[in-house]
């Protein structure tokens, strides 16, 4: 974990309001786990004030570059989207604990389930799993066709299914509809996306090994401010911090 001014190597929209940002810097050498994130300062001065948490989507140590994919959402990401190649960005990271690779063995099957802007960290995960010899199936859900990204990239790593909420591409409905419809089998499931999706997965696979990446509003991003806590089952005062204990948790470890 360090603060570094990283240089923008590439920055272009890749779908409607979805941007791909490639950052170069020595900080990349510290990045290891898929599911870790960086905390990015988007403004020069005090508005917007807080950093924005964004997941690592691709870690390229040889080139000392990492990729982030984000959705232009509110004020901060709107400002970020205006930064040009060659400019520098103040990055704190890498933060948090990513998806455990050791949960699955070579030859086994992993199911990767991503929803919307939860898709990016699964790409680095898919790469690492394939490298390990794991068979990867990806199910990616989006609202509409025009916000789909990285279909080709995921396809090059294994089977891929896409669902859109409005049916404009792939299966109409949610990722859970795809899993249900196809009866896909797997040894471990890794997921990142909106809370309703994570809850649905938790209920659907009570006996499976499932890892979920959570989102929560953050202050510090490093575990100091207690903004991002979630509850632990059956305990009044116990808690986990999404930023430093997560964002990836084993299903059941925390209350969704």
């Amino acid at each position, binding site marked *: *974990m*360090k*603060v570094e001014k990283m240089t923008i190597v590439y920055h272009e929209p890749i779908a409607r309001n979805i941007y791909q940002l490639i950052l170069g810097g020595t900080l990349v050498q510290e990045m290891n786990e898929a599911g870790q994130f960086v905390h990015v*300062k988007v403004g020069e001065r*005090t*508005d*917007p*004030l*807080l*950093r924005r948490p964004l997941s690592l989507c691709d870690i390229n140590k040889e080139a000392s570059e990492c990729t982030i994919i984000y959705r232009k959402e509110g004020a*901060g990401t709107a400002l970020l989207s205006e930064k040009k190649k060659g400019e520098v960005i103040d990055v*704190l990271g890498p933060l948090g604990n990513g998806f455990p690779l050791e949960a699955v063995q070579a030859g086994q099957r992993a199911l990767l389930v991503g929803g919307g802007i939860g898709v990016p960290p699964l790409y680095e995960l898919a790469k690492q799993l394939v490298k390990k010899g794991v068979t990867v199936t990806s199910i990616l859900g989006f609202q509409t066709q025009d916000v789909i990204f990285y279909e080709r990239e995921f396809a090059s790593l294994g089977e891929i299914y896409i669902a859109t909420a409005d049916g404009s591409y792939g299966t109409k409905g949610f990722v859970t509809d795809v899993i249900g419809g196809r009866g896909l089998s797997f040894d471990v499931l890794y997921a990142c996306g909106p809370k309703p999706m994570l809850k649905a997965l938790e209920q659907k696979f009570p006996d499976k090994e499932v890892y979920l990446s959570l989102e*929560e*509003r*953050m*202050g*510090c*991003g*490093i*575990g*100091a*401010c*207690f*903004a*991002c*806590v*979630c*509850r632990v089952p059956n305990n*009044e*005062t*116990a*808690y986990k911090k999404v930023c*430093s204990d997560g964002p990836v948790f084993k299903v059941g470890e925390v209350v969704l």
Partner: protein
Amino acid sequence: MSRLAVELPGLSLKNPVMPASGCFGFGREYAKLYDLSQLGAIMIKATTREPRFGNPTPRVAETPSGMLNAIGLQNPGLEKVIEEELSWLAQYDVPIIANIAGSTMEDYVEVAKRISQAPNVHALELNISCPNVKKGGIAFGTVPEVAAELTRLVKQVSAVPVYVKLSPNVTNIVEMAKAIEAAGADGLTMINTLLGMRIDIKTAEPILANRTGGLSGPAIKPIAIRMIYEVSQAVSIPIIGMGGIATAEDALEFFYAGASAVAIGTANFVDPFVCPTIVAELPVLLDELGFDHISQCIGRSWNKGGPTVYCGT
């Protein structure tokens, strides 16, 4: 470094810069980034008698140049703070100011008695003003008589000097400060957060699960400066100033207003190195402005007439 050294009741500070309570946990996270012994002191997270989970999430929301928080005093409780956190902090050469909170006067007294005996706790900070605690908390911080009574009770049991943290959510901060001084407080810390709220445009619901929260960050700096300016002229106990400090210049503005030391809260989230950076930059600023020692700046906006320093530009 001696040009930054400041002596306050219970606190021999090598420099007058410390993280503010609740914005630094118990130091463990920042210790991964730098040596905590560089800090003048550490104000640890509010400690209550029993462990508290705090409020539901979302607990923070961003505002123009500020943020709202409604953490709700989450902490592991008095016992664990003493056994696990304070003893861990003892490895650093840095005095601890223990921020304490509660729902009843007895809570405060109990926590004060116990925590003030920890060897590295050099002072207490009574958090009587947390706007996020619903029972009691608000009244403690806004009614002078109640605040004074609490101060007296805690003073009776505390083994170390007692600082009281003032809420800005009052009509008359000077009246409050004077009542607390008269009750025997050794110092004041100010300001805590201002009560605020944000509403989500899409859902029409408050963004914070707790609905309201405490506003901190640069947005509140002019309010903090004004209050410290007023209070420092009205009391003779020292003030540790806070509220929106993010740079050495900001810190200097607080000294000029009348603070004898400063604490940094929200800015730690934006720049985790902000405290040591300000410690390093203050001497440079003193040089530029022609001051030998930080103490020359304390209260300078009101205890010297007219412009006092020339710095040709």
